[in-house]
């Protein structure tokens, strides 16, 4: 199976101490290491207002990670571990690689078109002039 890239976001309760969050991240890291994957990125977005109440909280600590793996099972395991944590109130995993692939393809297409464009613009102009003179 080819490698896949996932976005993993989880929200911890606003009162969670720093160590607790580190512990959660550590459990994720061990799970990733076990199943054979790689955490590409870890970002702490800090405390953010939630758009709606989650587990009676209006705010939450956002942690964002990017995980690359070729084991789909890993996502299952990560979500299971997040679900068990009391301090985590919400999490979401999203597969990203296909969209990035599409993005790459489209931007390549655009560049190819941009490289071709100057010639295209110059061509129809003499034709239009001829038509105008004929009329």
């Amino acid at each position, binding site marked *: 199976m080819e490698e896949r890239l996932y*976005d993993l*976001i989880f*929200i911890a309760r606003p009162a969670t101490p720093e160590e607790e969050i580190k512990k959660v991240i550590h459990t994720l890291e061990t799970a990733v290491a076990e199943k054979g994957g790689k955490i590409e990125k870890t*970002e*702490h*977005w*800090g405390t*953010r207002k*939630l*758009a*709606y109440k*989650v587990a009676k909280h209006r705010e*939450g600590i*956002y942690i*964002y990670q990017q995980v690359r793996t070729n084991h789909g099972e890993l996502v299952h395991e990560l979500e299971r571990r997040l679900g068990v944590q009391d301090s985590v109130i*919400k999490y*979401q995993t*999203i597969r990203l690689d296909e*969209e*990035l692939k*599409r*993005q790459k393809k*489209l*931007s390549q297409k*655009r*560049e190819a078109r*941009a490289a071709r464009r100057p010639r295209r613009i110059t061509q129809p102009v003499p034709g239009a002039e001829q038509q105008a003179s004929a009329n």
Partner: protein
Amino acid sequence: MSEEQKQVQSAPAPAREGGDAPRREGGHPAGPRREGGPGGGRREGPGGPGGPGGPGGARRGKRQYFRKKKVCKFCVEKMDFIDYKRADILAQFVQERGKILPRRMTGVCARHQRWLGVAIKRARNIALLPFAGSAAGVQAPRALEAPKG
């Protein structure tokens, strides 16, 4: 080549500057609909004293003058990917109460509207955008605010 890349990279910055335009339209969702209203009235016109739809037609022509051609914001910015994490961008395409704005109001092209819908729904799931409720003042995650590159 390098210029093209620069353009793509610098895209997020103007995204926020120009961002107010679709929002303003969103603030008055009834606007375009009201325009459609008199058109409905015109249908009754021929039966009434108006007779031929002359004045109605003229009015219609005038109105077309005022209508500004909307262009897809994402096409202008050359975005090939709508990131669900950029809640500040997504919030421009959502009504005050959190509904996704239709294409006819925002001018987004069909392809980008499709991606936009997916992105908004993902953002909702992780509490970046509301399902229902105030979408005003939604900000991007701090880490993403600075444009990359």
